[in-house]
């Protein structure tokens, strides 16, 4: 729809400045960002100084047993007398860390794979994307389950396994972007000027990739966290005495009837975090004006 062709940005802001401006105006995204920062800080603090809340995440108090929220225990305790707040903060740290690491894994694999496929084009690209297509539809999670069941609950394995599930979308996005950029005239212009391939990749293509990568990385983290909690529910994720949100929710679900706070607080906090990540991701996507598997 042709409306008006000449629209000038006020003051000639750069792409990133413009994006930041748009992001800032998005209240939900800003809210999400703030929540995430607060959570990250609290979790980090709990991790470094477990005694911050007055209790450690694993400190049991069998005599006390499960108690609703009180002055001594702000969020109550679980059947083993462990303080829920401490476990929640600590578990939050673990969940966030799993989220970030697994996302990093999927990012690395996905970006490299997608960039090669996109840049190479032709038969190689076709083969590579066919592979992705096939994997995309398979219930990869089944393999993750098998992996985790059979090879033990190593946390590194957890990162790798989850990351291996999520890289597909990233690869597709990156490949799509690379192909679109490749075709654009400024790459032709660069070639006409005689720039080497490497230079073309770094100075021109990479900056244009950052946008979608940031957006989808931000949106992958909540999926990863959900996946981790799914595995924990099945008993395959993070193992006791460590906690993660998944573990806490699982434990809470088991005693939901009698001690509802054990499910409600972890569930609420996790949902809040996931909201924040999703809002932030959506906001980034609007701000950076990224297309793709459009939501």
């Amino acid at each position, binding site marked *: 729809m042709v409306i008006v062709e000449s629209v000038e940005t006020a003051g000639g802001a750069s792409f990133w400045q413009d994006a930041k401006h748009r992001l800032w105006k998005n209240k939900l995204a800003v809210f999400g960002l703030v929540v995430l920062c607060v959570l990250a800080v609290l979790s980090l603090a709990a991790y470094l100084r477990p005694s911050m809340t007055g209790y450690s995440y694993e400190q049991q108090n069998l005599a006390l047993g499960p108690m609703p929220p009180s002055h001594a225990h702000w969020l109550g305790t679980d059947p083993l007398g462990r303080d829920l707040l401490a476990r929640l903060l600590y578990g939050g740290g673990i969940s966030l860390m799993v989220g970030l690491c697994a996302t990093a894994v999927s990012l690395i694999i996905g970006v490299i794979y997608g960039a090669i496929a996109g840049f190479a084009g032709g038969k190689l690209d076709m083969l590579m994307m066919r592979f992705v297509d096939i994997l995309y539809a398979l*219930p990869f999670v089944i393999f993750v389950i*098998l992996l985790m069941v059979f090879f033990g609950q190593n946390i590194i394995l957890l990162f790798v396994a989850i990351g291996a599930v999520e890289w597909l979308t990233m690869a597709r996005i990156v490949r799509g972007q690379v192909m679109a950029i490749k075709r654009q005239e400024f790459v032709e212009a660069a070639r006409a000027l005689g720039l080497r391939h490497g230079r073309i990749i770094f100075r021109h293509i990479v900056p244009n990739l950052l946008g979608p990568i940031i957006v989808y990385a931000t949106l992958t983290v*909540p999926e990863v966290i959900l996946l981790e909690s*799914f595995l924990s529910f099945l008993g395959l994720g993070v193992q006791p005495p460590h906690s993660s949100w998944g573990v806490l929710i699982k434990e809470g679900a088991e005693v939901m009837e009698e001690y509802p706070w054990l499910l409600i607080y972890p569930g609420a906090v*996790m949902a809040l975090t996931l*909201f924040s990540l999703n809002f932030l991701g959506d906001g980034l996507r609007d701000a950076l004006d990224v297309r793709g598997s459009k939501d």
Partner: protein
Amino acid sequence: MLRFIARRFLESIPVLFVIATATFFMMRLAPGGPFDAEKQVAPEIRARMEAHYGLDKPLFQQYLLQMKHLLQGDLGPSFKYPGRTVNEIIADAFPVSLELGCESLAVALVFGLAAGMMAALRQNSAWDHVPMALAMIGLCVPTFVMGPLLISAFALHLDWFNAAGWYFPRDRVLPALTLGALYAAYIARMSRGGFLEVLNQDYIRTARAKGASGARILFKHALRGGILPVVSFLGPAVAGLLTGSFVVETIFGIPGLGRFFVTAAFNRDYFMVMGSVLFYACFVVVLNLAADVVLVWLNPKLRFE
């Protein structure tokens, strides 16, 4: 079109083969065997059981034997449930999961598409913000939180449904809602995006210029384009519903294949695991093919590739 189907079919065979091989070696190489849990069993009897199932033979021989059986359609016996073959267990459990899956998919499509279309048509109004907010909730609340919450609210407090079980038609409601919620959320967001993009296209303007009514524009012109992202998503959605069923079946006590699969994995019930994995894989491959066929049918431009 037939050539397309045949080609995809042929492509699937090596995939299934790879999956079978990978599963086989993964299982055998993992620590622990099917009879470790039987603590009461004396070593000689254990050895006899293993020999009975051919587990004492060299690994590669076992592999070939397994492949042979698979090609014959024989999925082997179950260790956990002696006297029952895997084929039987799957035949019993799969229809349950299938029903749950179909109902959940129906929930997801109905709610998701309706919400997405409404949101796109009345962009930035309450019709847009409210469904999308609900969709966000669906995305962020895990299935195994949603399930217990729904049970708590509707089964225990309001007493409208049973908390568990799969006996009456009513029992289908809460599990289908729980499992479908996540996918309804995805579909709502995707279809909103798809419809928004379509509604901005020039050909919608042409339809308006022809004097077409809103309903005609929506259903005749916008629907095909708007639904495309959802159809592309169907393949992975089905795969996800499959895995999601593990959780839902556990929470609601539904005797479906998902639950059998997970317990089999924990129990190192080799043949059961292999059987389930392959079964799922075949199922997903077929469904994916169906989704692709629908995609090509909807988008005429693809037919000429």
